[in-house]
């Protein structure tokens, strides 16, 4: 029987197109009803029924196009490029700068409170490389993971597809890869040096900075194709 493969082909294409599973379930249920009605009322051959309903790809493409027109990004396609192509880079850079300034501000507050931070002795012989990793986690790795999560959620809810979701992850990951920290601890309080730079080729730490947002994005992209289909919710007439 052609009904099942036809519906499954539509479902797969809609899932790949990023449409919400609940919507896919509803659409395929209605199409299944329509298929049955056509079979009972008019014809018996499945091929003719499919011909009347439209090929799976055509129905799915129509559904994707109609669904996209319901969303802001569907009505304003150029906004996709700005939001998912450009703004992730700008946002990542701004978040990085803000986090660095935050560390400086926290350090300044501690020093004003008399907490010794800048002398080598004060930090108890902490390895500068370890500090570099710590700063990287605070200024880059965690913000990049959160930003990727944020953009993937927006992309998922907007049903704009995995292409733009992937693009935003790559943009965040690229900017997240660039920063590096060099810390020189001095014996003299106030004379330690924290250098921030942007550059390639990436060190091991920069590779970690690159891979974390990519991993988050990959998780979202893979998750999109494996979600279960929850039941539709429609009001029931009294």
């Amino acid at each position, binding site marked *: 029987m052609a009904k099942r493969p036809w519906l499954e082909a539509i479902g797969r294409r809609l899932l790949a197109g990023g449409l919400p599973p609940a*919507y896919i379930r*509803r*659409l395929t*249920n*209605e*199409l299944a*009803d*329509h298929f049955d*009605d*056509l079979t009972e009322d008019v014809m018996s051959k499945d091929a003719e029924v499919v*011909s*009347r*309903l*439209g*090929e799976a790809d*055509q*129905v799915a*493409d*129509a*559904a994707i*196009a*109609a*669904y996209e*027109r*319901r969303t802001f990004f569907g009505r304003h396609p150029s906004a996709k490029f700005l939001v998912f192509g450009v703004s992730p880079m700008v946002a990542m850079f701004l978040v990085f700068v803000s986090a660095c300034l935050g560390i400086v501000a926290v350090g300044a507050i501690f020093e004003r409170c008399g907490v010794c931070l800048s002398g080598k002795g004060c930090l108890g012989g902490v390895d500068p490389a370890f500090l570099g990793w710590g700063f990287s986690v605070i200024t880059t790795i965690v913000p990049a993971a959160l930003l990727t999560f944020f953009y993937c959620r927006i992309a998922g809810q907007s049903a704009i597809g995995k292409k733009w979701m992937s693009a935003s992850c790559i943009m965040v990951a690229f900017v997240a890869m660039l920063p590096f920290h060099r810390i020189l601890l001095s014996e003299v309080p106030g004379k330690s040096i924290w250098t921030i730079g942007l550059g390639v080729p990436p060190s091991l730490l920069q590779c970690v900075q690159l891979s974390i947002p990519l991993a988050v994005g990959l998780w979202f992209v893979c998750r999109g194709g494996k979600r279960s289909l929850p039941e539709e919710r*429609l*009001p*029931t*007439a009294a």
Partner: protein
Amino acid sequence: MTTKRTNPDFLNGVPELLILSLLTRRPMYGYELVQAIRRSTDGTLEFGEGCIYPILHRLEADKLLRASRETVGGRSRVVYGVTSRGEKRLAGSAAGWRKIAAAVEQTLQGGEHGEAALA
């Protein structure tokens, strides 16, 4: 005019107009609606019937239609009806359509200063 069967928006804005017009008369489910379009247009407008649902869902999202699950003929169906917003939209779209149709007809008839456009 017969349009391509597989074209989802077989004429720009016409599916919405027909759907709103037919559903204003009475609520219907998808299959019923497709049959109603076929009857009311004498089969002139053909399209992939499966493509009616994305349009219905979009109109529902725009709050021009409301959907509810009802039992019709012993089977559970998603039945669509027009909202008050949909009725207003229909009135505007129908007036616009009549205006355009009259203008096109006038042109085809030769118009005030023109000649017959089609032999």
